[in-house]
């Protein structure tokens, strides 16, 4: 089962409505959307880019893309937050490449964050992230190192080489953890 097929939350529906209005060129809707989701998207690009000025540039680009592509968003194909977060992550990864700024400069392994997040944005605590028992169950099946490597790649934008350096394991082992972790998730989610 695809988590996208789970029932949309009230927050999803609010975002969908705003994206629909953006597609019809309603500038007030984009501003409302910015208030609601910019804190989490800014956190996302800052974590990958690690430089505030670059993260601010990325956030501008992200909202310009959201405005221009809002008409392409289809609630039938996914949740609005996953769509917007993907735009943000891909933009940050593109900027990493353009700036030739690699997170290999980070010497230490970032701390793992707590699961409960107090969101400052409207919608309350981590309202941007719908609960998904299925996904939680599947993530719990991963080994510690598989989960750690996937998190470093997805959240921190780390490459295979960066992860190998950060966790102090051979590159081949890291690639194997990632490959097996993704396979395990797919099998669990689609079973």
């Amino acid at each position: 089962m695809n988590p996208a097929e789970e029932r949309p939350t009230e927050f999803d529906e609010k975002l969908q409505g705003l994206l629909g209005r953006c597609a019809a060129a309603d500038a007030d809707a984009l501003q409302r959307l910015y208030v609601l989701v910019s804190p989490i998207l800014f956190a996302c690009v800052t974590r990958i880019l690690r430089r505030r000025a670059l993260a601010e540039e990325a956030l501008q680009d992200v909202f310009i893309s959201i405005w221009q592509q809002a008409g392409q968003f289809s609630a039938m194909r996914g949740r609005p937050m996953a769509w917007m977060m993907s735009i943000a992550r891909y933009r940050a990864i593109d900027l990493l490449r353009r700036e030739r700024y690699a997170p290999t400069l980070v010497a230490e392994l970032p701390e793992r964050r707590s699961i409960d997040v107090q969101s400052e944005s409207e919608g309350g605590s981590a309202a941007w992230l719908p609960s998904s028992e299925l996904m939680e169950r599947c993530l719990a099946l991963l080994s510690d190192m598989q989960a750690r490597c996937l998190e470093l790649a997805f959240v921190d934008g780390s490459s295979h080489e960066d992860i190998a350096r950060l966790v102090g394991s051979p590159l081949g082992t890291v690639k194997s953890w990632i490959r097996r972790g993704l396979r395990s998730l797919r099998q669990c989610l689609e079973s």
Partner: protein
Amino acid sequence: MKPDNPEIIDRLASEYVLGTMRGPARRRFERWRASTPLVDQRCRFWEECLMRLAKGLTPVQPPAHVWPAIQRRLKLTTHRPALRRMRSFALAASIVLVAGLAGLLYWRSHQTVRATLVSTISAKSGEHIWELEVFGNADRLVVHAARLPARPAGRDYELWALPKGGAPVSLGVLPSEGASSRILTPIQKRALAISSQVAVSIEPHGGSPTGQPTGDVLYVAPLRAPS
């Protein structure tokens, strides 16, 4: 050569979404995704799944100057607070009147914001179902849904460009109500440039999984320059 094995496609999609696919391979994959619904579908699956890995992210308020910068770049104007709006109402009204007249004259003389292509998809009874407008300057397709016929549950109507001598190119799922506006990809623009017709097929929820029409083609309508 692009793989057609679903397992390989899925593995590539997961690596792309995770971010470990880098460099030229990432650029090539992005182009492939833009033109292949099955690849796009697998990417969306992984985008939904992996989003939970970011559950530890703590939201960070962006600096106050970022939103005005976005407004400037998009040339947006949003509604001002009531007091300021009241104060500037008279001035704004005059400006709007003058700008409106100037805009009307500009529109008539240059017609740069007019659609470059239009199409009306109608039922046999003659009732309009969808109106399409393609804006060449903005590379934007706007679809207005009018009177939609009943459709089977869990299915969608998908729009196709029919390029001369080539396979149909998807222009996306059609809206069931209201208007939708989307930016065209380079592949869609090229297909429209050599198409004289568009078609609508009935497809599974979310659009054709193969990149080509899989259900019945229900409507074919000519693309024409606006009158």
